C-alpha cells in the first residue's frame, strides 16, 4: 500500500505568538517548529499500517527550506521519502492545489492529513484536495483500519461516532484517536542517521493562484486581574457569577 501523509511545520504548542512587519506576519523569531500534532497522529497511523501491509510511506510538505528539519524528523520516525513543494504557503487553496497535483501524478491508496494545522487553523486543505481529485473524504477521523482494498473508518460526530467504510483510495483528516498519544514515536538514533540520507525531493510550485489574503493580525484583549475569593466563602463566588458576571 502506498500512503501519502501531508505534514505541516507549525510552532510548538507552547509558543508565545507574536507578529512583525506591522502585524502582518507571524514572528518566527525564537519559535521552535514541530510536526503539526494532528499530522503526527496520521504519520504514526501510516507507520503502523505500513508495518502491517508493507508498501511505501511518502510525506509531502508545502514550504520553503526552513521546513526541512521538521520533514527530516518525519523521515527519522519512519517515512521512506519526502516531497517539499518549494513555496511559502499563501492560503489553503494554494496548498491544496500543489498537493493535489502531486497526488495526480503518483499512485496513492491512502492520503492522510491532519484535520487542521494548529497555526492558521484553516481545516480546509484535505477536503479541498478530495474535491480536486474527486475522492471520498472523512474529517475528524478517529479510527482507520485497512483490509485489502477497503478502509473501515470512524469519524467523530456531535456527541458520538459514526462508522463508515470506503474503497481505496480515500483521503482523511485525522486527529487523536487515530492512534493513542502513547503510540506516538520518538525517533531513535538509527532513524535519525537514516533520515539524513533518505530522499527529500524539492519540486517547484505550479500555480500562484490564491483565494484568500491575510490582511493583518491582532491579539485577543487581555483579561483583567483575577478576583480571588476565599475558599471558606464559596457563596461569594456563586454570588459574583450570578450577579456580576451574570453567567449562572
Amino acid at each position, binding site marked *: 500500500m502506498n500512503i501519502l501523509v501531508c505534514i505541516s511545520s507549525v510552532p510548538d504548542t507552547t509558543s508565545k505568538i507574536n507578529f512583525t512587519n506591522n502585524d502582518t506576519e507571524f514572528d518566527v523569531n525564537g519559535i521552535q517548529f514541530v510536526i503539526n500534532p494532528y499530522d503526527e497522529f496520521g504519520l504514526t497511523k501510516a507507520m503502523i499500517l505500513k508495518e502491517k501491509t508493507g508498501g511505501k510511506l511518502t510525506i509531502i510538505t508545502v514550504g520553503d527550506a526552513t521546513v526541512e528539519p521538521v520533514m527530516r524528523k518525519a523521515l527519522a520516525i519512519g517515512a521512506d521519502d519526502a516531497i517539499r513543494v518549494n513555496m511559502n504557503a499563501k492560503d489553503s487553496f494554494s496548498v491544496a492545489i500543489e498537493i493535489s497535483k502531486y497526488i495526480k501524478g503518483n499512485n496513492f491508496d491512502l492520503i492522510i492529513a491532519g484535520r487542521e494545522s494548529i497555526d492558521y487553523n484553516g481545516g480546509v486543505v484535505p477536503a479541498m484536495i478530495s474535491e480536486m481529485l474527486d475522492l*471520498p473524504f472523512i474529517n475528524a477521523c478517529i479510527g482507520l483500519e485497512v483490509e485489502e482494498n477497503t478502509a473501515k473508518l470512524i469519524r467523530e460526530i456531535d*456527541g458520538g461516532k459514526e462508522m463508515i467504510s470506503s474503497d481505496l483510495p480515500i483521503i482523511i483528516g485525522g486527529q487523536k484517536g487515530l492512534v493513542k498519544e502513547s503510540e506516538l514515536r520518538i525517533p531513535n538514533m538509527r532513524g535519525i542517521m537514516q533520515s539524513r540520507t533518505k530522499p527529500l525531493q524539492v519540486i517547484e510550485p505550479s500555480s500562484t493562484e490564491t483565494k484568500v489574503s491575510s490582511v493583518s493580525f491582532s491579539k485577543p484583549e487581555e483579561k483583567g486581574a483575577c478576583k480571588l475569593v476565599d475558599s471558606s466563602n464559596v457563596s461569594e463566588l456563586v454570588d459574583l457569577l450570578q450577579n456580576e458576571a451574570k453567567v449562572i
Partner: protein
Amino acid sequence: MSVLVYTESWAGSFRKSTFEAVSYASETAKVLGTEVVAVSLENVSDEELNKLSNYGVSKVISVENINKGDSQASSKIISDLSSDSNVVVFSNTHTAKMIAPRLSIKINASCITNVISLTSSSEITLNRKSFSTKAIETVKSNAEKTILCIAPNSYGLIVNNVSMSIEKSDFSESGSLTFEGQETSSGKISISEAEIVVSGGRGLKGPENWGMIEELAEVLGAATACSKPVADIGWRPHAEHVGQTGKVVASDLYIAIGISGAIQHLAGVNSSKVMVAINTDPEAPFFKAADYGIVGDAFEVVPKLIEEIKKIKN
C-alpha cells in the same frame, strides 16, 4: 441574489450553532441588501424547520435524501442551489469542513473558517480566530463567491422573525462511502456548544473523583471536559479533552478545577467569556487568565459550590 446558509441538523434537530450561523447569514444579508435562503439536509420536521424563520430565513429548501456526512453528495446539492448566492454560510463544525471546502472548489469560491465577525461591505473582509485562539486574523476574500464557516459561541443569536416558505426537494445523490451506523451518548451536552463547561485536571487525582465534576455540571446544566494529561492517562475519554490539540471551548462560563493552565490548555479555552479557576496552587498560571478564582482544595471547594448553586437554582 441571496445569502445561502446550510442549516446542519443532528437526529432531526438544529443546534444552537446552526441558529448562530443563520443569525450571521441574516446580518450579512442586511449588509448586502438581500435575503436568506437555507438548505437543510436529512430528515427534519416542518415544526423544526419553522424555527429558522425566527432568525431571518425567508425560504428553506429541505433535501431529505442527502446524508450530510457524504460530502460528495452534500456539496453537489448545495452547489446546485448556490448559483444565485455570492455568500454561503456554514457553522464551523467537522461536518461543515467536509462540505464547505469541496463546495468552494466546485463553485470557484474562497473558503474562510473560524469566522468571528461580519463583513462591512460586499468586499468580504472579516476577522477569524487563528493560532488556536492566541490571535485574531483579518482576512480578505479574493474570489467573487465566498464561503464562511462561523465559529460557534462567537457571534450570538439575533432574533429576526420573518415569514418563511418551506420547499421540499426530492433530489437524490450519493457518493462512494458506505455509512454503517452511529453511536451517540444521548443526553450529554456537547462541549463546543455548551454555555457552561466544567473541566477537571490532574489535580483531581483519579477518575474515581469525577463524580463531583459531573454533579456540578448537572446542577449547572453544563458539559464536562478535561485537560490533555487526564485524557492521555485514560481517566476520561478523548472526546472530553479541551485545549489546543483537543476541542475548542467558547462557553459563557468555563470552570477549571485542578487544572494548572498550561499555555496549550488556555489556547483552547480562552474564548470563553468568563473563566473560573479552582486550584490549590496560588501560582497556577490559570489564575492569570481567570476572571474569578479560589485558591483551595477542590475536594472541599467543589462540594460547597454544588450546595450553593443548588440553593440559588431552587
